[in-house]
């Protein structure tokens, strides 16, 4: 195993005079001073400016607040399978399924959609597991990172709010294709004797 004993040579007489340390310290400061005099500002180099005047632009693929999305035709994508509710490590998601009497869905042939879908943004940790497990691509972590509210109730986002914040996500329209193939089967010529 290659080990390396760190160098701790005692300070020389010159170094004990504090002078070299002061000089090298000033050198570091001067270097940074000249850099910023030339227009380089660390804060603006690393981001676009000073938060909150200039909001932080998050990286591609950032995990912000999770919102529900609609498909191209404005239908709710979520089918209330409750996988996200199950996986959610801080238990922030609460789904109320439609039940036997509820409206199954807002589009033809889809099995069901949630009667209520609530995310408690005070509990949510933006881990992204809901998006990862969703078998319908119905929930996405979007770019919002600064959520504020004046009460706890306000921070529980319901289905309506989540859908309006989420926007649309174009993708495979799974249930549309299922409907088409089902309709196709219905017009299939059946032999009659």
């Amino acid at each position, binding site marked *: 195993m290659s080990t390396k004993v760190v*160098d701790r040579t005692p300070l020389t007489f010159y170094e004990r005079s504090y002078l070299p340390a002061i000089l090298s310290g000033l050198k570091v400061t001067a270097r940074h001073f000249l850099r910023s005099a030339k227009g380089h500002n660390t804060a603006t180099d690393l981001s676009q400016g000073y938060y909150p005047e200039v909001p932080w632009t998050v990286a591609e693929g950032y995990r912000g607040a999770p919102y529900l999305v609609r498909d191209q035709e404005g239908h709710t994508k979520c089918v209330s399978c409750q996988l996200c509710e199950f996986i959610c*490590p801080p238990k922030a998601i609460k789904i109320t399924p439609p039940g036997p009497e509820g409206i199954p869905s807002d589009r033809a042939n889809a099995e069901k959609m949630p009667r209520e879908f609530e995310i408690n943004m005070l509990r949510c940790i933006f881990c992204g597991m809901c998006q990862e497990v969703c078998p319908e691509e119905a929930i996405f972590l979007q770019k919002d990172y600064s959520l504020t509210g004046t009460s706890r109730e306000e921070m529980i986002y319901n289905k309506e709010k989540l859908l309006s914040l989420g926007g649309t996500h174009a993708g495979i329209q799974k249930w549309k294709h299922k409907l088409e193939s089902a309709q196709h089967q219905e017009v299939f010529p059946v032999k009659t004797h």
Partner: protein
Amino acid sequence: MATAQTISFREPASHAAEVPKSAVMGEDLQELQGDKLVLNIGPSHPSTHGVLRVVVELDGETITKAMPDIGYLHRGDEKIAENMTYNQFVPYTDRLDYLAPLANNVAYALAVEKLMGIHDKLPPRCQYIRVICCELARISAHLLGVGCFAMDVGAMTVFLHTFTEREKIYNLIESLTGARFTTSYTRIGGMTRDLPPGWVDQCRKFLDEVVVCFAEVGSLLTRNRIWVDRTRDVGVISKELAINYGLTGPNLRGSGVAYDVRKAHPYLCYSDLEFDVPVGSVGDSYDRYLVRMEESQQSVRLLHQCLDKLPGGADNRSKEPFHVQDGKTVLPPKDKVLTSMEELIHQFMLVTQGVNAPPGEVYFGAENPKGELGFYINSRGGGTPYRLKIRAPSFVNLSILPAILPGHMMSDMVTILGSLDFVMGECDR
């Protein structure tokens, strides 16, 4: 804690305090001679780096006894782990050593993979990305450790420069994992995503900049008389004492014991990479500082090797897998889940029941920035651990305080706490 005096102190192991009696002491002062003052440092004190409370007994300005009191940040992580599947616990590991969440993610994933017997079947690209994560986390944690240590001792400038560099690491981590702080990057059997395009070049650029920062920190501290006077021969931990108290990480190596889990029990692809293990010779705070600085430089060296050797290259044109190819361990690809029945079933099974771990017990320790972070998993089979024990390096490293603090001046305590570089999120867990 009703009274601080009720805590039973253990006898200080070394450094019996010698307090010189002043000849010019007044009469009322002489009456006070021999009275000890019990002082609470923390739980909320700038130099305790979190919620550590140390009850010290002072004779004048000299510490005669010290007792750390921990548990202010206890969240019951080990019990929480028993009630969720293995993958669900990954976000909790972010919050152990919150200065190096990526390294915790990797250590935890490797522990569960060892239980499942797939730790040696990880694809090479996965191993290299995990090493990159670990070493970035190490640089980040050491930059903070040295910066805060210097700030506690009085050198404010260092802290500001190291934090600028950490910001760059956070930017890299943000584009890699999607979060700056709570990364939750690993899953059992792999990672959530591959390197984003252009990331390798950004990382190389950062490495070139961070070595400049190391040089600056070195020029501000290493040969600075004030710094040397404050840290040299302060908080000396002998080799034997370090081993007896079970120290790991830079604190152990500062005492001259060349034990590094990456070398002693290589995991991931560490055996293919070249790096030196820096060790100290005396075991004082100065040695621990030097070891941390050298270790960060070695991490840069490791990162350069990893980025060069990365299987599949920066863009992964050859489509190297970055997780194991097993539908019962990692979630199937999303397009398959949407269109195919088999994958949809796997998705539901894996999410609701978790990975199918065999019964048995396993311990896996990884070299984290603070020391050896170990996970002991006792499994009765299935997707949930029966018991998960976290061997937190900060917890063990703090246990040495009653042995090394007595005999030091009050202001040296700040130096010693800074040089031990602990983090309470991990200690109390």
